[in-house]
């Protein structure tokens, strides 16, 4: 019973940390990591919910766990797509920041590619 509470709270804290980093961290790759942390925290909360119903016969509810496995796949493909977008932006513009004036100030860097 207590394992569900401990790891559920752990998941809650990871969501909070990830959300903060997602908002404040200017580096796009760090935002992708933060997005993954938020997802991972949500999965942990799912895991805690599944664990709460553990009895001697069952180790927990299989439905949220199956959803988490599906979620891990989807999160990975979203991460790969985001990383590919980021690399393409970097190759095309010579810079990959999200600020408004990023494109104009760094156009000369692109000649190296």
């Amino acid at each position: 019973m207590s394992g569900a509470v401990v790891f559920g709270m752990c998941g809650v804290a990871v969501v909070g940390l990830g959300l903060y980093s997602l908002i404040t961290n200017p580096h796009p790759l760090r935002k992708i990591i933060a997005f993954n942390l938020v997802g991972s925290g949500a999965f942990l909360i799912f895991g805690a919910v599944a664990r709460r119903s553990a009895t001697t016969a069952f180790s927990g509810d299989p439905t949220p766990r199956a959803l988490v496995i599906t979620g891990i796949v989807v999160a990975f493909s979203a991460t790969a797509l985001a990383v590919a977008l980021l690399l393409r932006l970097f190759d095309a513009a010579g810079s990959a920041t999200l600020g408004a004036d990023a494109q104009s100030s760094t156009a000369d860097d692109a000649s190296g590619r």
Partner: protein
Amino acid sequence: MSIQTALELVLAAVVLGLAAWAVAARETSAAVVGFIAYGLLIALVWVALGAVDVALAEAAIGGGLGGVLLLSAGARLRENEKRAAAERPGAGARLAAAALSAMVAAGLAVAVLRLPTPAPTLAPQAAANAAATGMGNPITNVLMAFRAMDTLLEKFVLLLGLVGVWSLAADRLWGGNPGPRHQADPLGLLAFLARLLAPIGVVVGIYMVWTGADHPGGAFQGGTVLAAMWLLTMMAGLTDTPPVSSLRLRLVLVAGPGVFLVVGLAGLLFGAAFLSYPAAYAKPLIVAIEVAMTLTVAATLTLLSAGAPEQRLER
């Protein structure tokens, strides 16, 4: 406090420490290493939560493919670091973000602590209907039969993600091989490791798919291990990614969702509903879908990690 609870608290503290490091590290490469270690430990948390299937999936993705993806991206974006750091928001904005995150976390915490008791569960139903599919692993039953629609759609998401990644290729490179060609000494250490580890990994991957019927494992976990082994031989310079214009590759990529869809439509025509399996053939049908899905997952995850086409097609 029992020794079990103490252990869980230590584990949760270590996981939180790694998450905090991945958020707070100044350099991106340091944050990526922290996140990789976090992924390894999360697998341990899933074991402690009694969900070995999820632990296998998390170990394969968090420990293997995810780390490779983020590390290589971080290396290529290294020059970007200083420029991005200049856009760090001011103290006021950070404070507001911290307050918002704390509020969201507090709301979630209240929700987790006030979950209803006794906890609702579908475990008895899943166990009671296991006979309909002939498989003993409840998670495989949920994924492949009871909520097969989710899994089918997830395969489409994977495919759409790959199409998205490929569509980022420059026009002149379209049809070429994804990712940079890895240079490595064919007689070097990395090639030695790849030659020894890849056959073991292939056996482990197939074993995981097979054992997934009755024990923790399954098509996704097995496919991920296979993908990691393919990526290893690529990093060792022994193989290259197939060109994206290859027909054979595209057949493998649509095999999983294709077989799944055909079986589902057959259920609509001959059975009770879309994705319903006739009881007599349920297990062979599910195994067929799983085999096709394993191939698709392995190919898709490898190519997702490799990225957009970057080598010109050689004719």
